[in-house]
């Protein structure tokens, strides 16, 4: 994929200073990094601007960069990334957006109040509704303004967020032995 320099220039011009950054990768995809407060405005521009027309949200997911001690070396700070993959049907273009979130310390059973928070874009792309629920279910990221933020793949009363790197499988669930 070519580097999204055009989209970056457009966003940098329209958004408050310092909230957008272009990361050019030598191999693989390059991406645009956003501060979470600028996310909704940036998405609106990318969707509606005449020269962008990213009318499809292909994918929304999260990445946990935490590395439990004693395994592989820590490459990045413990953090979450929320990754958005956009697609423009008319321009046949794809674009990757990222928002970096702080990771709450350690324990996957942390209370809901401590969950990292990011604005929801479920009203901009209807596809984001289920994708955000999935990211909430798997990573415990709270999407502020989501119409119906419930677990989607795990049962309602499941504890913990399975795709976090420090997730531990529960010892028991409704009398069924785990582990």
């Amino acid at each position, binding site marked *: 994929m070519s580097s999204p320099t055009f989209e970056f220039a457009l966003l940098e011009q329209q958004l408050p200073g310092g909230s957008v950054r272009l990361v050019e990768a030598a*191999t693989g*995809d390059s991406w645009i990094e956003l501060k979470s407060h600028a996310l909704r405005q940036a998405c609106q521009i990318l969707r509606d601007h005449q020269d962008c027309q990213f*009318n499809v949200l*292909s994918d929304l997911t999260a990445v946990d960069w935490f590395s439990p001690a004693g395994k592989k070396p820590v490459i990045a700070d413990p953090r979450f990334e929320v990754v958005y*993959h956009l697609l423009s049907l008319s321009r046949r273009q794809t674009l990757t957006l990222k928002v970096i979130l702080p990771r709450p310390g350690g324990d996957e059973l942390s209370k809901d109040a401590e969950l990292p928070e990011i604005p929801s874009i479920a009203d901009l792309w*209807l596809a984001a509704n289920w994708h955000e629920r999935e990211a909430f279910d798997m990573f415990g990221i709270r999407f502020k303004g989501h119409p119906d933020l419930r677990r989607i793949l795990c049962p309602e009363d499941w504890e913990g967020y*399975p*795709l976090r790197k420090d997730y531990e499988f529960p010892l028991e669930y409704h009398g069924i032995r785990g582990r």
Partner: protein
Amino acid sequence: MPQFADQRIIELDVRTDEMLVNMGPQHPSTHGVLRLVLRTDGEIVHEVIPHLGYLHRCAEKIGEHLAPPQWVPYTDRMDYLAAMNMNLGFSLTVEKLMSQVAPPKAQLIRVFVAELNRIASHLLGMGAYGLDLGSFTPFLYGFREREIILDLLEEVCGARLTYSYVTPGGVTHDLPEAIPIPPGLAMLTGRPAGATISWVDAVILFLDWLGPRIDDYHTLLTENHIFVQRTAGLGVLTREKAISYGCSGPVLRGSGVEFDLRRHGDKIYTSLYEKFEFDIPTAPFRNAPREVIVGDNWCRFYVRMLEVTQSMRILRQAADLWTIGGVSQDPAGHKVPYRLTTKLPAAEVYLETECPRGQMGFYVIGNGAAEPLRTRAKSSSFCNLSVISELCQGVLLADIPSIAGSLDIVMGEIDR
């Protein structure tokens, strides 16, 4: 019959209450373990709440602990009706991350198996959809044809459903030279059973036989008055809604958006198909019955039927390329080595490919180890299913299978 002076008494007499009805997870029309909670008033459905997650096995988590070739079998079990396409999507993603290109011979083999699998998947989708609407014959026909494709794929890789045939770097085995003609094909075409035939010739023999059968399906379903009545004008998904919901594949094209990743996707994927001529069937269709509206059940079904024909076109061209020696016939040319210890670069790649159900996306992040840091599978059925609450508002209870079936979902892909 009692006479009522006041008409309102009759109305009160047949008054219905709102009721919550569970549809699935065991009902045959829910296509795997999908539970729909319906809020109904009499026969009218006011709200549909889908519940997923019955098949959830956290394949993405497992992917963080396995090297890419080891994770390929997990992609099989997501869309178990089009496993070749799933293998291909993931393998291409890893190859793109590694900046690797499969040899030309492997690319041609990939087109062969992916398109055969697409036909098999659409035939089953078509048959099962007939079954949803109460017509049993197309289901048996679809299975008869699909069986021969499974025989052919079994000759290639030994498996009938979960192939793990396309791997990073190429395909696991070369195409077989000569095979005993599959029993089903021998019976249907009148060839002597036990005769040997080259694999590519067997594919052509099958296509020659399948071609005229497509008309049977159109007689049985597409033009059938009952079928049209139960599908046309129902479950209409507008172009704008389809795009906003991220729908893909036949659902998107049935809503009138001409977009197919085999033509419009990433270079690494389109290069497989650039040699071939084929059309992208998109609604509206000129020969559609009068009742049909763009984006309804009938359009989605018809797009799949036309895609079978287009896949057959691609297969014939691929067979020509193969037999005239359009690619190197080097026996070892079907793959380049990819070891389990091969380190993935610290980079990330997101790639979507056109599976029979829509755009299947894989997202792989490497960080210098052989196992990726994150393996994400974004499934097409997940987005396609999310429109169901929208489509099923205010329809009759009996129309729910018709709408759900037209989306052609596979739950293994949704729950992953």
